[in-house]
């Protein structure tokens, strides 16, 4: 299971992960080796097996729609790299 550099760059773009050329090459090798190990799963016949998204027995855990206290906004903004009034400030999204 061999990935191409182009595929690796595409995955990095999907994940919004900046990668250098050297990293692309290294990840290409690493991921190819790891993906090869996953082929073992093809040995298993899972046609009539249900998918288990988690190991919990709970479903649709709900609470009453009642208003409760949230974190104060000044505490939430305290960690922000850049903020203005009660907003997080970011560089332009559209050029």
């Amino acid at each position: 299971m061999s990935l191409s550099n182009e595929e690796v760059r595409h995955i990095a773009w999907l994940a919004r992960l900046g990668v250098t050329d050297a990293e692309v090459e290294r990840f290409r090798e690493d991921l190819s080796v790891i993906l090869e190990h996953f082929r073992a799963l093809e040995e298993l016949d899972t046609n009539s097996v249900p998918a288990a998204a988690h190991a919990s027995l709970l479903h649709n855990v709900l609470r009453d729609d009642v208003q409760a206290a949230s974190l104060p906004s000044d505490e939430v903004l305290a960690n922000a790299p850049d903020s203005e009034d009660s907003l997080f400030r970011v560089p332009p999204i559209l050029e």
Partner: protein
Amino acid sequence: MSGDQLHTLSIHAARKLLHSRELSAHELTEACLERVDQVELRLRALLTVCADSALAQADEADRELATGDAAPLTGIPFIAKDLLCTRGIRTTCGSRILEGFVPPYDATVIERLLRQHAIMLAKANMDEFAMGSSTEHSAYFPTHNPWNLDCVPGGSSGGSAAALAADEALFSLGSDTGGSIRQPAGFCGVVGLKPTYGRVSRYGLVAFASSLDQVGPFAKDVEDCALVMNAISGQCPHDSTSAPVAVPDFATFLTGDVRGLKIGVPREYFIEGMQPEVRRSVEEAIALLERMGASVHRDVSLPSTKYALAAYYIIAPSEASANLARYDGVKYGFARRLATTEESVNATRGEGFGQEVKRRIMLGTYALSSGYYDAYYLKAQKVRHLISEEFKRAFAEYDVLAMPTSPTVAFELGAKTNDPMQMYLSDVFTLPVNIAGIPALSLPCGFAGGLPVGLQLMADRFREDLLLKVGHAYEQATEWHLQRPSL
């Protein structure tokens, strides 16, 4: 007990002295802080030491103890893995991308411990975002195994395990997604428990793989482990995956009596490539339990075991790729600001994340991407069902399953960092437990070349009582838990 030995106390021994007022929380906390000063430069287990707040908490604890009505963990110093949010105290998750992050809230487990006036001494080092098995992937520095400083403490909760083995506190907290409590517990010669999925709240535990993560205790003995479990377990309104299952008093199961209990020994956990001394120590432990009256059954097979590694390394990175999407330099943490948001996000994540984290995010992104979802993620979820069903059938026959925690003892720093697959293989015995959501315990059962060997016990969902009962009985018939590294 002399002042310079106080840090070696267990919780249950310290509690007696605190409640009888022979010892103050202040003295105990000072003793642990002195121990930290003594060993930290060699160990590097801690990222943040909270000396001032710890001493203030100790004074509060002493006031509580004076009333005669104090909760069980009052005045007991502990260390928390830096994956747990602690209000007002820097929380890095072992990553540069959260270098200056100060959470505005406490994780539920932290809140419950502080409410009992336990004393938070420090935040422990870890593999970045809990991705690793040696703590070498911390963005800050590696932690050293107190039994041999050239060796790893295990991971990802390596700091929590090493700190406790070195008596820097009386208990510590870790998290376990694929073995990150049990494997370091085994490598460092302490008790480590991964509770049933849903037994302990994940609120405030920075998410790695939401269907696998659990918070759990490291302790010096099984009784201490039970005491911490009493404090941290139970449903939490902030964690919808926490189970509405009653929390027993875990200390009541420590009877020392294992007669009539059935122990299954699955053959898939005694493979070629295991270190011979590990096999020997674990076999001797199982033989001792048999002499104590448990029945041991070796015709147990869990054929799906060999698929657990692949299933885990699809499920966990897939979930991680979603959980780590929030680190974008917008609301908190490190931010590299460029001309546009897209460039900024790419650069922030490119610079802020380490190699192992990037590798897993990419693996997960790939497995979930269009065209590959069915072959990888969906397939792995079906394998999860098979693994869970296999354990369910085994627990219909046996009370606990016994096996080694790891195929080897702690390896040398740098030995596995060049080959990701080699590192992943060190978790083969621990991964299946997380996939099935069942609880498992690691406790010391011997030494090989001066390094601890871990015995692992597994039980059915919400049967931590059986793990503690069997573990405690074995422990009290041996002296492994009384050994200390010479630091």
